[in-house]
């Protein structure tokens, strides 16, 4: 998630600059208030998103899915980091956004659990207080994950972290872990839960979710690396994400977050459309789409459109 924050920060700065330059983008402009009054059969909605590509991609997918069902969508994509986007949503600047359930719950003061269902329930309770609702979450998660090369997975016969901990030869593995791992309960704490002794691990210090650690994993400098579960490198290098079977990492499934005011007056098919999108979006799919956007440099619009049509959603 660190990479995302950096991206989000950059995008926030950009968004600030852009919004300062663009006339008529202020809170009182007609376009902004259109979202606030939309609903009731009007099928007109304003969709916002954070700055990094994955959030923009999900928002674009929501937008095109709704457009395919006769909605008029105004896009405010790439607004900025969570602490810019969230107040804007609550204040009615826009009506709908994609969010990660764990991070949003943490932002709202709650504690994200490893179990998505539990996180989602707590998130819903927290959202009630600010007049928002989360629709169904997707199986797709973007969370920190321990990743190995395909060959390591097959040689050791492992697909989950527990299996890795029990695997013969696991003690020979070299780990690419971030410097802060030792003091982070979600890193060293998680590894200890699986039965690894952090102090005994052979560690090379690489920042998590970053390009150098992915390169080092691919080249065999390290055998296990901490990456983000939808990082394009995972698909590029054909890595295997080990399942976090003890659910040590906060669940970060992606869900549409919508303003209650809008939802209460929404057409009947609104939730159905978005729930169908979420149901079809799993982590591998999202990773592949991310590769097309971030590596192949396809436009977000094209990637969203082709995925929706492949899944019969537009």
């Amino acid at each position, binding site marked *: 998630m660190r990479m995302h924050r950096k991206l989000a920060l950059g995008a926030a700065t950009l968004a600030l600059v852009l919004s300062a330059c663009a006339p008529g983008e202020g809170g009182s402009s007609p376009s902004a208030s259109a979202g606030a009054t939309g609903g009731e059969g009007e099928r007109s909605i304003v969709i916002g998103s954070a700055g990094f590509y994955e959030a923009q991609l999900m928002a674009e997918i929501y937008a095109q899915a709704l457009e395919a069902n006769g909605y008029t969508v105004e896009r405010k994509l790439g607004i900025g980091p969570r602490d810019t986007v969230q107040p804007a949503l609550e204040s009615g600047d826009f009506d709908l956004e994609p969010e990660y359930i764990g991070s949003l719950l943490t932002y709202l003061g709650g504690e994200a659990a490893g179990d998505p269902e539990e996180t989602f329930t707590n998130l819903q309770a927290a959202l009630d207080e600010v007049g928002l609702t989360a629709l169904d979450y997707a199986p797709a998660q973007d969370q920190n994950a321990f990743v190995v090369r395909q060959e390591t997975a097959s040689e050791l016969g492992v697909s989950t972290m527990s299996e890795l901990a029990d695997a013969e030869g696991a003690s020979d593995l070299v780990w690419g872990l971030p*410097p802060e791992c030792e*003091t982070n309960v979600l890193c060293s704490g998680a590894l200890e839960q699986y039965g690894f002794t952090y102090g005994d691990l052979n560690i*090379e*210090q*690489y920042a998590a979710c970053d390009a*150098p650690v992915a*390169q080092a994993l691919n*080249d065999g*400098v390290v055998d296990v690396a901490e990456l983000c579960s939808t990082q394009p490198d995972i698909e590029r290098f054909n890595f295997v994400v080990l399942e976090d079977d003890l659910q040590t990492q906060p669940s970060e499934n992606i869900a549409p977050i919508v303003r209650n005011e809008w939802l209460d007056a929404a057409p009947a098919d609104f939730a159905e459309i978005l729930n169908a999108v979420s149901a079809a979006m799993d982590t591998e799919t999202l990773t592949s789409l991310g590769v097309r956007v971030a590596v192949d440099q396809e436009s977000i619009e094209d990637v969203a459109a082709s995925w929706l049509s492949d899944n019969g959603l537009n």
Partner: protein
Amino acid sequence: MEFFGEVAAWFADPANWNGPDGIPARIGEHLVLSIVPLAAAVAVALPVGAWIGHTGRFSNLVINIANVGRAIPSLAILALAAMLLQRTIVDIGLRDSASEIVTMIALFFLAIPPILTNAYVGINEVDDQIVEAGRGMGMRDLEILRRVEIPVGLPVILVGVRTAAVQVVATATLGAVVATGGLGRYIIDGIAQRRFDEVFAGALIVAALSIATELGFSFIERRATSPGLRGRDTAPRELAQAGRPGGI
């Protein structure tokens, strides 16, 4: 002011002076990380630079390539070295030192341009009359290079080595991005763990080491320069005048 107190406290903490991540150990790693690529660059770039300076052959080509190399950001060289060579390094069984070797290779390429350029310029700009005098005394090419051009061009050549050394010592910090030891660890780890006293302390040590390198090489330069050449600006004139009193 409170922050500087924290930095001072960091330096005062005995824990930061002991063990594998203590200051002496990190400085040691940093020096190894710096000296190896610098020595390799000297071994390659000095002879090549001297030779093209002596013959004038391929000088445009070589100097231009070196200068293009200079324009590539160090981090990009490091990333490129990792991308292209890391796998091979692992395959030939040097896995445990792969990060260090990748970093050293990147630093080697960083050190080449100033050494090469200054060696070329230092030799090339030696007064033709002096070279001719050497030839007149019956010296062969290599002898002229060794006994005339290199001693006369040495101050310029050594400036190139000094520039490279300071750059390498300062840039070796980047190795921490690809998991080497050295002083960069304080900066990279400090940022990752939001320990900014450590980041600042690390930067201070790197700066101090760079300055020490600069001073050390300046000292060597002065010692290595032939007494006749000290105060370079006046030396050639004195030499020229020394030639004159024959009353031409």
